[in-house]
């Protein structure tokens, strides 16, 4: 099958072109480094079934991070290249174009963001550009789909240039200067409102207060949406569902099947959090407690991503991240990780060195709670009082900074400085945001529901065979001595490997008091990432570094848990 590869600089809309061509769903945003791995899709182009591959963005064919390495690797598989070029930034995009032409593979150039170029007073003579590069050039607006048909119709024009003399880098820059002088006409535009806004949001004096407001507003909106959905949609739905499960419960009578599907009745009633049946807790935790916050988080995250604000936040927070051995771009894995640690861990690929990736991934697994975990901490600990919830999150933030400061000194290797292109602000498109949020919700459900069922099943089986009592007895002396929480909490730690949200729920029947609950949820948050994140860590860091990373997590969890115990509960 013919392989078509989309190549281009970061953040110029390759992924948008990709989903336009293949209809495949991929995440697109307005910041460099959204795509860190390649995606494949099928399309009917050139009168046959072809494979289209979306490569991560790269500035040249000499990679400087892991995402760019993937791009260079993917290029080797290409039978045909679609080189996506940013029309608003022709000059600096042409370096990669000239490098790609030297690969002698058939190629066609797509000038994307044609509308934005016109608005900013850039006029490009497409015919002249074709003459210079001796390949076809199609101008498109990927976001609206304008010109995509034209691209599809003209794909058969893709060819390798007749004369391929290899230029040195110096010669390439001279050639680029010549081309852009010939094909480009710039009309000077006075800076508009957006340009002023852009400057205000990136300058330290005005940008810092704006950033604080944006971050606080983000969390406030997530809570507002989450709590609103719970109160007005999910709670009423689960109350409607309750009589149905009661009927099933009565029909089943007592026995293993009842325990498995419905779980334990508490005072003759079903308790959605504590009953631990597949049809009760197994459904209620993901749908009734976590999903509402997932919806809220990803809606708000999409706004941050698509507006182009994240790179500004990266600039403003660079100072902090630099002291933790990373740089400002590490805000991207952190923010994605607040949704789910898995995409967060993948996003560490945009960091340049092993040291930066190790620190970023370790801190992510350690102290960045995913929405599922956060929602449960809110749901379970919130009943004890809001200040306890705040205490847990403040501790996690302190652990993030504290461990980062230490790892920066201990981990060997370089921490290069930030070097980041700031995209222009773009107005987020409601349809794109809903589509993107929908995709992420689907992933959450596909990921969470099987593991939750598995978790519920495991809990029941392990209790039935007596394993849970045994392990609780073994660990009880240590848990009581060091953390002042009962040995049964070990069962929650065990289940936490599969689903942290379920594990937080398992703490509820233990009858802990508020300080014990704070210690238990903090330790549960810190001690180990969930199995899905663990798998990604092995893939990204390798076995050896993952083991080191988890050693850091377990040690930190025990130290911080112990310290909190002495602070909150004392020695008694």
């Amino acid at each position, binding site marked *: 099958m013919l392989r078509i590869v989309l190549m281009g*600089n970061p953040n110029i809309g390759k992924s948008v072109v990709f989903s336009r061509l293949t209809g495949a769903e991929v995440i697109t945003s307005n910041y460099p480094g959204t795509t860190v791995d390649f995606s494949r899709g099928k399309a009917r182009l050139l009168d046959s079934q072809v494979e289209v591959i979306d490569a991560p963005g790269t*500035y*040249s064919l*000499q990679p*400087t991070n892991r995402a760019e390495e993937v791009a260079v690797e993917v290029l080797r598989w290409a039978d045909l290249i679609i080189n996506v070029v940013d029309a*608003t*930034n022709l*000059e*600096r995009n042409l*370096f*990669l174009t000239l490098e790609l032409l030297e690969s002698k593979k058939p190629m066609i150039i797509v000038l994307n963001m044609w509308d934005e170029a016109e608005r*900013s007073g850039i006029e490009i003579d497409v015919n002249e550009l074709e003459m210079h590069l001796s390949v076809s050039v199609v101008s498109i607006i990927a976001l609206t789909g304008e010109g995509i048909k034209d691209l599809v119709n003209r794909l058969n024009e893709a060819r390798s240039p007749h004369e391929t003399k290899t230029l040195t*880098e110096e010669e390439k*820059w001279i050639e680029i200067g010549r081309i852009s002088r010939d094909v480009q006409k710039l009309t000077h535009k006075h800076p508009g409102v957006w340009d002023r806004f*852009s*400057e205000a949001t*990136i*300058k*330290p004096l005005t*940008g810092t207060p704006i950033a604080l407001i944006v971050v606080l507003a983000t969390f406030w909106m997530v809570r507002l949406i989450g709590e609103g959905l719970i109160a007005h949609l999910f709670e009423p739905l689960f109350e409607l569902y309750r009589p149905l499960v009661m009927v099933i419960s009565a029909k089943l009578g007592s026995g293993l099947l009842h325990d498995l599907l419905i779980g334990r009745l508490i005072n003759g009633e079903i308790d959605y959090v504590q009953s631990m049946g597949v049809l009760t807790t197994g459904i209620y935790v993901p749908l009734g407690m976590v999903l509402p916050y997932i919806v809220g988080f990803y809606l708000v995250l999409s706004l941050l991503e698509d507006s182009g604000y994240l*790179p500004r936040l*990266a*600039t*403003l927070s*660079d*100072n902090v991240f*630099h002291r933790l051995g990373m*740089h*400002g771009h590490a805000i991207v894995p952190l923010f994605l990780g607040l949704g789910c640690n898995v995409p967060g861990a993948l996003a560490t690929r945009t960091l340049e060195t092993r040291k930066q990736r190790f620190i970023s991934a370790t801190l992510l697994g350690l102290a960045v709670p995913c929405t599922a975990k956060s929602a449960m901490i809110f749901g379970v600990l919130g009943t004890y009082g809001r200040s306890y919830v705040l205490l847990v999150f403040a501790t996690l933030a302190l652990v993030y900074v504290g461990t980062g400061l230490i790892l920066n000194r201990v981990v060997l290797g370089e921490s*290069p*400085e*930030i*070097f*980041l*292109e*700031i995209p*222009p602000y773009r107005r987020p498109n409601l349809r794109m945001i809903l589509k993107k949020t929908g995709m992420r919700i689907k992933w959450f459900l596909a990921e969470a529901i099987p593991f939750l069922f598995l978790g519920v099943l495991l809990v029941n089986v392990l209790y039935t065979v007596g394993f849970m009592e045994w392990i609780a007895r073994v660990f009880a002396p240590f848990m009581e001595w060091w953390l002042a929480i009962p040995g049964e909490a070990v069962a929650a730690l065990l289940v936490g490997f599969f689903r942290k949200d379920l594990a937080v729920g398992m703490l509820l029947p233990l009858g802990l008091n508020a300080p014990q609950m704070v210690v238990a949820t903090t330790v549960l948050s810190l001690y180990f990432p969930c199995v899905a994140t663990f798998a990604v860590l092995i893939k990204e860091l390798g076995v050896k570094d993952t083991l080191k990373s988890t050693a850091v997590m377990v040690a930190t969890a025990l130290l911080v848990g112990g310290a909190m115990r002495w602070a909150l509960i004392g020695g008694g």
Partner: protein
Amino acid sequence: MMQLPITSLKAGAVAQITALLGQGCSFQRKLRTMGIREGKMLKIVAIHPFAGPLVLDIDGREITLGRSIARRIMVRVEDCCESS
């Protein structure tokens, strides 16, 4: 002509890039592919305190870069905006 690293400019200053210093061709390539090239005009948009990053505007596009990278970008200062 006075040649200075951009770290000695003030926020708002406009200057022309004259040279990129040191650290091999991969470093220089990275700067150039981001639009930082000899002959280009740049504006200092922001300088973050506590040795934080600088924000430049080149060809209407903003770029954030750390101090030690910025130290290697040399410029010729326009008379009207000269600073020391």
